[in-house]
């Protein structure tokens, strides 16, 4: 399983591609690709967003579902989704509506 991530051009915020081709600031909203065709679709949409100067640094990342929630396999991606592990008052984890922890 993979999801597509990038950083938003204007402020560098980590974002994930949703099914409606919008970019979410939280990983929960990402569209999951379970097959190669969907991966390709995500990548096409991502490249289009790069061309439109919405995002930079595209990457397809490996995830699994843990208790029904998206869980990136690499710590790097978990930290991108949550924020610095030493400062839980910073990054997405500091928002009241976000529960993910790296």
């Amino acid at each position: 399983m993979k999801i597509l991530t990038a950083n938003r051009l204007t402020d560098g915020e980590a974002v994930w591609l949703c099914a409606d081709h919008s970019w979410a600031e939280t990983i929960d909203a990402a569209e999951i690709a379970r097959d190669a065709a969907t991966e390709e679709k995500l990548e096409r949409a991502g490249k289009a967003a790069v061309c439109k100067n919405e995002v930079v640094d595209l990457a397809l990342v490996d995830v699994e579902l843990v208790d029904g929630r998206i869980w990136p396999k690499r710590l790097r991606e978990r930290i991108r989704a949550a924020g610095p592990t030493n400062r839980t008052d910073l990054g997405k984890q500091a928002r009241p509506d976000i529960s993910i922890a790296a």
Partner: protein
Amino acid sequence: MYRYDEFDHQFVKARTAEFADQVDRRLAGELTEDQFKPLRLMNGVYLQLHAYMLRIAIPYGTLSSRQLRMLAHIARTYDKGYGHFTTRQNLQFNWPALSDIPQILADLASVEMHAIQTSGNCIRNVTADHFAGAAADEVADPRPYAEILRQWSSVHPEFSFLPRKFKIAVTGAERDRAAIQVHDIGLHLKKNAAGELGFAVYVGGGQGRTPFVAKKVRDFLPEEDLLTYTTAILRVYNLNGRRDNKYKARIKILVHETGTEELTRQIEAEFAAIREGELKLPQADIDAIERYFTPPALPARPEGTVIETSAKLANPAFASWVKRNVNPHKNPDYASVTISLKGIGEVPGDATDAQMDAVADLAEELAFDEIRVSHEQNLILPHVARADLKEVYKRLEAIGLATANAGLVTDIIACPGLDYCALANARSISVAQEISNRFGSQARQEEIGELKLKISGCINACGHHHVGHIGILGVEKKGTELYQITLGGSGDENTSIGEIVGRGFTAEEIADAIETVVETYLALRTDKSEDFLAAYRRVGAAPFKQALYGAEAKAA
């Protein structure tokens, strides 16, 4: 300290305006990321895991109160209320929006600062001994030469697209506090038998994937030849350095592959050809720059000794702080103070906007308006009257910056690692925090004595782990963090690269492993006067391997 002249002001202003225009064009979609990336990097703007990062140059680590206050202002206004001081005497902000960066650079320019050449394959911020101009053991202040190099290397047309980045460090004392032997060029300012100033020149040191201690290519270079000789080195490198492989592109690889003798011959040949040219430094020019660095007029304060002695008796915590964080000054009535940014369990090198403001006030009132950033990620007040140490301590204590640990095991260098850095393999900060908490007791730290522990989150070695007495390198193995320990490294006048002791440790194990290393040292040292490095150099890795790996070590 150095003040911008008309030319400097114009140059930085023009550059700020140019970059503001580039950012506008990028945001409007007129520049692609491929076109924009090299432009933003030349202005210190990186993209990290959570946001952009802006790296601000602090030339040879010297700041005025006004400048430090501006950094606090930027932290508060555009960032998240803190900044991170780095091993290159720079400051990084971790959260600026790209759209705010032009305004940040304009604010910086108003206090004679910028972010130019803090990235890219050019000559980077020139670093220097953080006690420069103050240390009792110094031959001469290295900063005028660092400033001459800064002016010469700024947007140098010939050296803006080198095979790879290029770092120069200068020290003016026998005791090397600037780690010059792990820089592309290391300059040791000294006097010859005739009492003239000049430099011992080291080339090809570096850490990263392939660490090397620099080779000495000149025992004494007259000061007037500083720029000609540096140009000769850069020319040989620019011409022959490898551009086919990023990992082999630094000058250290060229030195290694060419051999010191042959490389020295090439440098000397180029030097001979250009020595009498326009780069020869007239004494009047050196003098003009030196005047900017004239030390402040220090009034006699002979009452210091008495005040200090009674304050120490009254307050043991103050006595510990004086012992660890106060360095001898040229003027016996004065001292240089290390402000530890390594509070127990804190993030090495981080300071809040309020702390920066408070240090700026303190420097203005009690330290002649001067602050330094050390490559060990601390702040320094170079000129403090000993009579004022008690007051300085009290005020640092009030803002949580009076930790008495300079040079001790909790004075840890750590890079941002995987909590921020896009290149990281593992976290550094969390490891530093855990170790700091483990060894947090003042008595225990003092019992252990001088011990430099340095942590990097990947092989790029921004955390200087190769030259840590104990070094920790984070790697990624099968999706988890693993930490390798190196022992016996040192970044001083007797530089050595640490040796890997054996297999790595997990995040859960690493603090225990460090504790084992330290306990092993305590058990085998001849007495307290034999510090960790001396003991390691005497006994080698074997007892530490045995303690860490037991039977496994014997089998290996």
